């Protein structure tokens, strides 16, 4: 570790200001616009301008049936489809008063954690790019493909699988893995770790294959640390940048890794356990550095915890049915209102649903984690240099599509 240096920034209160727009085409911001006011190269004001991908998801929910809502609800958080659909499915189940089978609970947890890792890898890779570290992008996206393959194996699609349905999951996991996938993984294992897979043959059994991929990824995570997170340049770019103190984090109402990076131990999987999480032992990583570096480290340690969760879930998963018997399209949901939340990759995602007893929801309100983290952005992007904007922006793990809904 390099020695931490305290950086002082001179703020020029007087002088000509310049207001300009950053985004929506800027590579550092994606489909999102910030109106920045600067004095010299010091940012004195930042006004976020979301809404470039506002597709009216909540209104759309009122036109579609309970089941056909699931595919379009995945799209806002396409990196983390499971995270946004999870609370919706939990809410509908609570309204119906049903409980999914045991095996379905574990499959849901496996899927949710796989998507969490995929989302965090995307985050880490892009953070690396905007910190000037292209290798991290290549490493993260190379490893991510094999986890996406696992998602495809279980759900049938790379990222938008529509796997969760009220009353269970859509289909069971396969018992055997295709030979091409196994060969490809073995080749990649040899290429990245410089040695052959122990025992020579990668298992084709589903459970053993998932454990093999998890072990491999755990080893790779250990290699990420000296590559990016312990690199002096990265530490200098992120330490002390975008400081969000504990009290401010709580009062601004941020969630997920941003809140845990400020030293608050808050995780829906622990606070309000759902599905198979009560049966699984895992820790919630918390860092009290309150800066961009802490937020990145929380994401990194969360991936390690997710690997543990997947391993336990695969080992504990019982045999049996994966879905309740019900009509595939028009399920009956009684009238009433319900609130449910789940821990998505970027934080707590909540759904408020009101039903009037018909085949469609009467009202759906989505509270996505990115929307809640957006409140911290104008607070953090103030009195910093222009070069720090992408670092702060990506440290919040903000995904505009999820915020705009």
């Amino acid at each position: 570790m390099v020695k931490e240096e305290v950086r002082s920034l001179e703020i020029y209160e007087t002088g000509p200001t310049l207001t300009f727009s950053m985004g929506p085409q800027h590579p550092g911001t994606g489909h999102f616009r910030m109106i920045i006011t600067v004095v010299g190269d010091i940012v004195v004001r930042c006004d976020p301008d979301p809404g470039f991908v506002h597709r009216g998801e909540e209104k759309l929910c009122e036109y579609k049936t309970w089941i056909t809502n699931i595919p379009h609800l995945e799209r806002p958080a396409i990196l983390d489809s499971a995270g946004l659909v999870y609370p919706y499915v939990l809410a509908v189940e609570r309204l119906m008063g049903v409980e999914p089978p045991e095996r379905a609970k574990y499959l849901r947890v496996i899927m949710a954690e796989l998507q969490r890792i995929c989302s965090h890898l995307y985050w880490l890779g892009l953070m690396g790019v905007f910190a000037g570290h292209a290798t991290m992008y290549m490493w993260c996206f190379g490893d991510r493909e094999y986890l996406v393959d696992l998602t495809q194996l279980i759900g049938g699609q790379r990222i938008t699988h529509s796997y969760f349905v009220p009353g269970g999951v859509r289909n069971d996991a396969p018992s055997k893995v295709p030979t091409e996938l196994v060969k490809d993984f073995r080749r990649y294992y040899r290429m990245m770790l410089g040695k052959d897979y122990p025992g020579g043959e990668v298992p084709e059994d589903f459970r053993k294959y998932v454990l093999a991929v998890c072990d491999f990824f755990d080893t790779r995570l250990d290699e990420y640390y000296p590559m990016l997170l312990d690199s002096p340049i990265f530490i200098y770019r992120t330490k002390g940048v975008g400081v969000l103190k504990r009290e401010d984090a709580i009062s601004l109402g941020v969630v997920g890794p941003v809140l845990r990076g400020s030293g608050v131990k808050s995780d829906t999987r622990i606070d309000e356990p759902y599905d198979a999480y009560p049966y699984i032992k895992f820790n919630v990583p918390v860092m009290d550095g309150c800066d961009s570096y802490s937020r990145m480290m929380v994401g990194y340690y969360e991936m390690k915890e997710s690997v543990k969760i997947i391993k336990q879930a695969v080992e504990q998963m019982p045999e049996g049915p994966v879905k309740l018997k019900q009509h595939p399209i028009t399920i009956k949901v009684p009238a009433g209102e319900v609130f449910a939340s789940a821990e998505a990759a970027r934080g707590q995602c909540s759904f408020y649903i009101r039903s009037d007893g018909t085949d469609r929801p009467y009202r759906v309100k989505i509270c996505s984690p990115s929307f809640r983290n957006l409140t911290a952005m104008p607070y953090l992007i103030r009195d910093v240099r222009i070069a720090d904007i992408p670092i702060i922006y990506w440290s919040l793990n903000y995904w505009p599509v999820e915020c705009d809904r």
Partner: protein
Amino acid sequence: MKYVIYKLKNLSLIKYIINWGRICSMWPVHLTTACCSVEFAALSGPRYDPERFGWLAAVGSLRQSDVLLIEGTVTAKMAQRVRLIYDQMPEPKWVIAMGACAISGGLYAKDSYNVIQGIDDIVPVDVYIPGCPPRPETLFQGILMLRDKIMNEVIR
């Protein structure tokens, strides 16, 4: 004189060389309109490596770009910016519409009040890539189809 230059440019060998130069240095604009950008990022990763086909990394300014890849849903607010970006790009330029939303509105075609139902109302599209989101292999096919199209173009 202009006519003579036009004819000279379109002699088969010169035309081939110019078009070959264009297809081997296609430079996309970094414009992420919606969620298909995740698959575009996966395409740019090490497993697929689009630089084999002359598809450069999506960095640089609009003044150097020649391909506009519309990645997914275009809303009413974004449509103005898409047109603005298209107008700022130098000729020759091509447009790829990626994903069902960019082609026809996709999942949001019927009920959404804010989604443009097909980007071809805003900018002229050369290649359509269906899917929601399209797999990286599908994107490759789109890139190869665009290369074929460029190779057969007349030089102005």
